[in-house]
């Protein structure tokens, strides 16, 4: 097994979460949600600590992490961009919006840009189908996005801090 090279603080954080759920194996998904919420992602080393704390095999933890699309083993960009590929968005042109993001950021879905600023993912229906096609950047929702608007959205975040601009 590879050496765990996590910071002491991180390990304490993970242990705290596991303790909160009484180290119960059945709470694994809740534990993963909270740990990812704090650390942003779930690399192998983190899974090893969780496995030890919940007294289960690393393989089982890994099996659960990789089963659910919500969990990620890779760090996200500073501004995670998600393009809704739900049916409502798809028929209103989400695919073109996605390829425009790929083209401009020069990354594929699941990747993070070289400067660590943007990561790209697709998701299924955020529940704002009335505004299709929908793109989210962090918590912010952009509606009725056209391929032409893509560069504007990216520019909003390029200078570091997102401008106080309007969505939709």
């Amino acid at each position: 097994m590879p050496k765990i090279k996590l910071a002491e603080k991180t390990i304490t954080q993970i242990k705290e979460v596991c303790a909160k759920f009484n180290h119960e194996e059945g709470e694994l998904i809740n534990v993963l949600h909270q740990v990812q919420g704090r650390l942003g992602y779930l690399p192998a080393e983190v899974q090893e600590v969780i496995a030890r704390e919940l007294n289960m095999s690393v393989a089982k933890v890994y099996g659960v992490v990789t089963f659910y699309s919500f969990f990620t083993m890779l760090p996200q960009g500073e501004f995670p961009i998600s393009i809704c590929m739900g049916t409502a968005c798809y028929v209103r042109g989400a695919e073109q919006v996605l390829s425009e993001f790929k083209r401009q950021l020069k990354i594929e879905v699941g990747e993070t840009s070289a400067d660590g600023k943007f990561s790209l993912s697709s998701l299924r229906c955020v529940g704002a189908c009335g505004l299709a096609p929908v793109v989210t950047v962090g918590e912010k929702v952009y509606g009725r996005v056209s391929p032409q608007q893509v560069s504007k959205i990216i520019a909003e975040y390029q200078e570091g801090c997102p401008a106080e601009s309007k969505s939709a």
Partner: protein
Amino acid sequence: MADYKMHVLVCGGTGCKASQSELIKKNFQNQLEERGLDQDVQVIHTGCFGFCEQGPIVKIQPDNTFYVGVTPEDSREIVEEHLIKGRKVERLLYTDPTTLGQITESKNMDFYKKQVRVALRNCGFINPENIEEYIGNNGYAALGKCLEELSPEQAIQTIIDSGLRGRGGGGFPTGLKWDITRKVEHEQKYVVCNADEGDPGAFMDRSILEGDPHTVIEAMAICGYCIGANKGLVYIRAEYPLAIQRLKTALRQARQYGLLGQNILGTDFDFDIEIRYGAGAFVCGEETALIHSMEGKRGEPTFKPPFPSQEGYLGKPTNVNNVETFANVPPIITKGAEWFSSIGTEKSKGTKVFALAGKINNVGLIEVPMGTTLREVIYDIGGGIKNGKEFKSVQTGGPSGGCLTKAFLDTPIDYDNLLAAGSMMGSGGMIVMDEDDCMVSIAKFYLEFTLDESCGKCTPCRIGNKRLHEILEKITEGKGTPEDLTKLRMLSHVIKDSSLCGLGQTSPNPVLSTLDNFMHEYEAHINDSTCPAGQCKALLQYIIDDEKCTGCTLCFRNCPVGAISGEKRSPHYIDQTLCIKCGACYEKCKFDAIKIA
């Protein structure tokens, strides 16, 4: 509602929130405070009004004025003109697209006229974060009636008599399911609410939880009383933060009011509810997979029987129902089985909520009596096809459903008719497609979804769907052969017959229904190498019309691969061997000189 003279209801559904409805609410509050009116007028965030296309929506009570497309800046004018001077702000009223007249009240709009709201009765009317408003609207009366007047058997009989069937997709009679779970003897049973809502493009369940969380809590408690369970679990997608937050608030309030916890309403009935989070896996909507996921495991389905009613969560008898199914229960108990069964068709009683989306004018959340026709939904309520285009197909049932044609427009919607037509009711996603949608691509889109979401447990589903997808990809690239069509059909049937769970068993439906209804589109791709809808990039050619091209060089400068050449002020030319079909030239050209062939 307390002592306020007027109320400003601001839509707090996900769609309107994405259009700054939070800021709208804040601005209203500030405007009112500045004028010292905050004791007379109350501003409330409600659940979804349904008319998402026209959002953000603001409704003024008591006169029921319905403002559409409101921006944060409009709050000042509404306060000054409407609330103070009593003059409606006309520019924010809804304009009827046919008469072009303005309509002030929602009940007079075509979008609402044919709707009957049972499950959505409180959405957009009450503040979902205030239990008193729910109680004020007859809330928790059904639970009270059950505990005080009805035995579990009598309450179950009411549900059986009402004819309510599961709204999560399968359509199993709800009362019967409760009765089965009640009869299994065990000291520990569970009530589970399925709020996984996996169908991409559907948002019914989340809207109910966001707009009226107490109805689900009340119904779960009733179910617990009926089947003999004192513990409930709501399995909800972690991607629904607003619904989760509203549900948590509602649970806390219900406990404070003694409507959850021990000795509810002074009886010896105890019941409480916990939340469990999904983590983005469509198959977890299937009840056995959902139960495994709640136990902290991979959400893989298992063979039924045993049904959850016999052996469910932690091996205990578990009653699983959908959010919308639960939302129908309280009114059935208070108004009676007869009232409910008077709505709908012979075998499908009551109403159904649909998330209407796609190429339609009025995207939104609607609830109609069973038996309403697709035409009424699409044209009368939905306002017809966007941009005056031609209707092509309507898809119901999500990735498990099918694509219906014009020929089915007059089919009354119910469980059996949709199945007979080659689709299914599903949970209520309804996507409208127009002439620009390529049906082969749509089938491919759904299969992509299935591929992503298959849990991989059985070979036909894991590998068979992959092969189906490959064949469809071939066809959309213009490399299909006539034999592929036979292969598609054969393979589809094998997958349907030999998969373990509902996901695999229904995954080829989008392929089969498009083969049945849109064969000519498949044939066009294969025999003529054309995509009638002009969607399949590999089959397109961008060409420049010499007559219209002014030689402005805009296309030349925008082509990312240098496929365009030509002299300034003379017609340009696209080298087809270099063109990657990105469409940049097509979008940029100001003279309409680029054609798709």
